[in-house]
């Protein structure tokens, strides 16, 4: 294809060939760098008085959230709007899914309206992958069951990279219900690729057997797990799982695994504390830590918009 004159001379053009963002497992190190670098530049747009650039004018983005979400959905919506795309939100309760339409049929109907990107969250692992094979539009996985949540891992990596000046060689400890966490899985895939040493910690019932095969260390004691950590990522304890007998009670969980003023003293002085939200104060993290000097929880949210702007920018373009 003949490039317009400006494109050859002005700035380095990069190749982006991936149609969908389904998980950190598929992304290459180069692609991750490209997303994070692009996101870095988008941070500035959100800091302006007029937080809008005309880049995706005339593009349509459908946020199709079959599972509850405020943070991620709002973040994708804001990201699309700051790039001047038209964003449409569909939630499960207000969609034809409640009338018995299959996911595939809903997707084909959305496809027929010619959007450019479909962002999907679904409680079933693999739902975005199925749609990606079904429709010609770009699909972004905004969380599928306990499988992956790539945009969360990317914003976590962006936050770490900004604060620590890089990723390679760092120690990151992820604490909580690793078995049910798509945030943990995406971060493990992503961080490992970037040369980070990942440790997971939690009660044995929350650590999948053979998780070492993903290239992580396992630790059952919180104090021990945070000793060498540059970053501690606390996961939300899904309180609805209390009935599933994976932990005796929230109180017992928090006695052993709540990050608080006492046990954080064992960690490095400049340790970063992260949390993907929503936070259960006093369960996995005590309020003074969530709001304390080590916490970058709200920075994660700010970076989330920039990362999602980068994903939308990279995925929308000329159809080949």
């Amino acid at each position, binding site marked *: *294809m003949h490039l*317009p004159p400006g*494109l050859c*001379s*002005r700035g380095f*053009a990069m190749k982006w060939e991936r149609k969908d963002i389904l998980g950190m497992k598929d992304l290459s190190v180069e692609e991750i760098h490209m997303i994070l670098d692009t996101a870095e530049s988008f941070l500035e747009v959100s800091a302006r008085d007029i937080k809008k650039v*005309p880049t995706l004018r005339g*593009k349509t983005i459908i946020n199709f959230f079959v599972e509850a979400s405020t943070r991620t959905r709002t973040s994708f919506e804001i990201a699309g709007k700051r790039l001047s795309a038209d964003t449409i939100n569909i939630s499960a309760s207000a969609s034809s899914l409640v009338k018995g339409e299959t996911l595939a049929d809903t997707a084909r109907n959305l496809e027929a309206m010619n959007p450019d990107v479909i962002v999907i969250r679904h409680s079933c692992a693999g739902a975005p992958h199925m749609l990606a094979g079904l429709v010609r539009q770009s699909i972004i996985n905004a969380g599928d069951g306990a499988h992956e949540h790539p945009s969360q891992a990317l914003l976590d990596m962006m936050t770490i990279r900004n604060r620590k000046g890089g990723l390679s060689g760092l120690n990151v400890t992820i604490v909580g219900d690793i078995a049910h966490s798509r945030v943990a899985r995406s971060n493990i895939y992503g961080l490992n690729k970037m040369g980070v040493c990942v440790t997971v910690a939690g009660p044995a019932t929350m650590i999948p057997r053979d998780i070492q095969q993903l290239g992580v260390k396992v630790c059952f004691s919180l104090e021990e797990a945070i000793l060498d950590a540059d970053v501690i990522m606390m996961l939300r304890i899904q309180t609805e799982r209390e009935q599933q007998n994976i932990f005796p009670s929230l109180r017992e969980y928090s006695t052993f695994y709540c990050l608080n003023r006492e046990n954080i003293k064992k960690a490095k002085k400049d340790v970063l504390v992260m949390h993907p939200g929503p936070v259960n104060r006093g369960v996995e993290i005590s309020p003074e830590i969530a709001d304390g000097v080590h916490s970058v929880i709200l920075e994660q949210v700010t970076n989330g918009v920039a990362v999602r702007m980068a994903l939308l920018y990279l995925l929308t373009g000329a159809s080949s």
Partner: protein
Amino acid sequence: MMTPKKVVMDAAEIDRSLTRIAYEILEKNKGVEDLVLVGIRTGGVFLAERLRRKILDIEGAEVPCGILDITLYRDDLLLANKKPKIKKTDIPFSLDKKKVILVDDVLFTGRTIRAAMDALIDFGRPRSIQLAVLIDRGHRELPIRADFVGENLPSLLWEDISVNLIEKNGCDEVVIEDSGH
């Protein structure tokens, strides 16, 4: 047929042109009051910085100098399969009621300048926008002209004109070469 590179401006000529442009800016605007410089990435950034220093030498006054990345405002973004890399815009001052001197290395189709003006207006309401370029090579596709020009360089459409600057390429020169289509 590739023709060899031809140097059309050397370091001394570039410097003299910039000195003249600095004087012209001051003359037209009657001094530095409300004046700000904004360089378009990448070449324009270094030229804006050089103009800032020249104005400081001539007038003894500091003029604020910002950086503009126009990528997000381009009209060809969705045409190509390659994605231009996005860099930061850095204008750490208000543009309201300012006389903005937009600086770029080469004026060609005018599309970059169109994008730059749209971007500037998103940052505030300048009193005026004036355009300073080192090279005007013709071939305009939009009704845009420069207020301050270093050198008019009529060129063929398939020729490449590069402005090499010490800050990015290690030497100061303007080179013209046949891109071989």
